[in-house]
């Protein structure tokens, strides 16, 4: 059976006064139902732009989009990039739903929580307003809002950050979507609330057998909830594989650098962190060759200055483990240990 979502060679760029912003560049991945794919990368690496393209939420006059994002529905496949806006609109909510990075901007301040969930429900269900509100109460209950029947009448500003995030989840799940894209669903929350929300997402995924894309910059969160991960850097996927391989045998110098640079509560030695020098490049004037080149400590191992002249392909170095780097697997093994492996 085909995975529910197949993204193929997806690129999104924005023409601006300063030049073309290549925000998302030749992205390919798949997500099956019941599976969680994490997209991880630092600010501006193209995580949100990629997922908004899948959802058909970019303004097509402002964004150049190419490639495919195919939803394999029971009724047959639909490509959300080439399908008409009306078709894509009908897919949102039921076939695919999204939890946005900032819950406050995604919730309407002047409508009650209940009205907003009921409206989302009404898009796919025939029923009276009170049926909708009844369904809203059920959903709020499901996501753990205490006294749901009372709080359904309240407004977003009367909810705490963690509760608003739950409301977003309730709204996204009200029509049992097949695919859920959660964009930094816990970044604004405290850790104790974060672990509640992550648990809730996991439970909901099991209950509805959803395909989940979790977008985050937190490698700790990825380790805890994802089955597979894509690491993005400067608009491209630089590494993709099953979760354990990303952590125990990372195959890209950027991933290796990231893992070495984060302090961990489970390691108390307090040794100096191994920081990645420099900063990410501008998406308007990407360096020639590999985008990570200016910050990479291993480019000298690659002969003929290829890092500066040749864009590395996303190669399957080991079965199911892709990385975009000119280093050979043998050199990468050295790279991993030379900076102190985490295993």
């Amino acid at each position, binding site marked *: 059976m085909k995975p529910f979502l197949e993204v193929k060679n997806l690129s999104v760029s924005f023409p601006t006064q300063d030049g073309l912003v290549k925000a998302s560049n030749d992205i390919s991945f798949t997500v099956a139902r019941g599976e969680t794919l994490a997209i991880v990368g630092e600010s501006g690496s193209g995580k949100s732009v990629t997922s908004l393209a899948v959802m058909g939420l970019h303004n097509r006059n402002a964004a150049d989009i190419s490639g495919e994002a195919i939803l394999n529905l029971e009724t047959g496949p639909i490509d959300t990039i080439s399908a008409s806006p009306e078709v894509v609109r009908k897919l949102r909510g039921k076939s695919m739903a999204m939890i946005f990075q900032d819950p406050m901007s995604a919730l309407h301040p002047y409508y009650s929580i209940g009205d907003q969930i009921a409206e989302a429900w009404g898009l796919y269900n025939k029923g009276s307003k009170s049926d909708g509100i009844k369904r809203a109460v059920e959903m709020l209950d499901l996501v753990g809002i205490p006294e749901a029947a009372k709080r359904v009448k309240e407004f977003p500003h009367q909810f705490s950050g963690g509760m608003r995030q739950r409301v977003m989840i309730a709204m996204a799940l009200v029509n049992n979507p097949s695919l859920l894209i959660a964009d930094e669903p816990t970044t604004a929350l*405290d*850790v104790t609330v974060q672990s509640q929300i992550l648990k809730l997402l996991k439970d909901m995924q099991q209950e509805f057998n959803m395909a989940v894309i979790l977008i985050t910059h937190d490698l700790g969160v990825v*380790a805890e909830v994802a089955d597979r991960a894509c690491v993005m850097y400067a608009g491209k996927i630089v590494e993709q594989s099953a979760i354990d391989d990303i952590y125990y045998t990372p195959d890209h110098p950027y991933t290796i*650098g*990231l893992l070495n640079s984060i*302090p*961990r509560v489970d390691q108390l030695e307090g040794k*100096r962190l191994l920081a*990645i020098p420099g*900063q990410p490049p501008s998406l308007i004037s990407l360096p020639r060759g590999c985008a990570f080149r200016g910050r990479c400590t291993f480019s000298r191992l690659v002969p003929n200055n290829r890092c500066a002249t040749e864009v590395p392909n996303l190669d399957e170095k080991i079965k199911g483990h892709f990385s975009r780097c000119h280093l050979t697997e043998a050199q990468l093994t050295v790279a991993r240990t030379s900076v102190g492996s985490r295993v």
Partner: protein
Amino acid sequence: MTEPILKLVGLKKHFESTSGGFFNKKKGVVKAVDGIDLEILPGQTVGLVGESGCGKTTAGRTVLKLYEPTEGQIIFQGEDITHLSRKRMKPLRAQMQMIFQDPFASLNPRQTVGTLIGATFDIQGITPPGGVKKEVERLMERVGLNPEHVNRYPHEFSGGQRQRIGVARAIALKPKLIVADEPVSALDVSIQAQVVNLLDDLQEEFGLSYLFVAHDLSVVQHISDRVIVMYLGKVMEEADKKDLFMSPRHPYTKALLSAVPVPDPIKGRKRERIILVGDLPSPMNPPAGCVFNTRCWKVQDKCRTEIPALQQIAPNHRLACHFPEPAA
């Protein structure tokens, strides 16, 4: 015994606030910081952790007397500065500095980096040996900025570089104590380590003491010698780093630690997690008795009526709980 750089005794900062509708305005008091005791030794880092709104920023700002304390004492290098006037505080300001969370909001966008860093000397009326310009360039170099960029404006720098500008300003006058309020929270993961390392190096070089305020336990764990855990304005537990992370005794500390995700999938799957119910209560209306009782999984009747006192349970380990966890 070495004398602490900073000593706080029962420090409190309460804010008056009004809430409620237009007609039934209620006057209330937010007990943002409700009794902190702590000592920071020279060259030491004390980490202050806790969830949003527990009073970390307020504590940091009150220490520097950016807020007037409501109660308690602030003793800086043996001198009680709790009620010092603005004028008498001024010479001390050079010795206690602050680094802010938001490297975007804390720098005046219309001033060049040179002016921003140089202003620190003007405010104190100090001329460094060799002149301000030379010293600014030296400082830029020290924090890893290119001195040739002295005439650039904050927006021309990345987040990490802007935080370095903040660090350069804070160390310009060779302070003894720096209060760093979430200095890396706004930075990308790959940049955080650069700034953490810089703070580490500067501490070694100048024997600085830090009060390091953050909600990220991993960063706090890395940088601190001692750690204080706050909840709703109160200290729940305080201990040397190793004790606190290896053998947390307060239920809240334990829950907090267990909630931090670790970037290690196999360990993560095996880890026992304590999932707290509910959200942080409003600081306007904190629970009676133990402030943690609405979310604590060990709560008993006594917790709802009696405030647990912060008690010494071992040398260098203090705790406020009626039913602490056993030592690990």
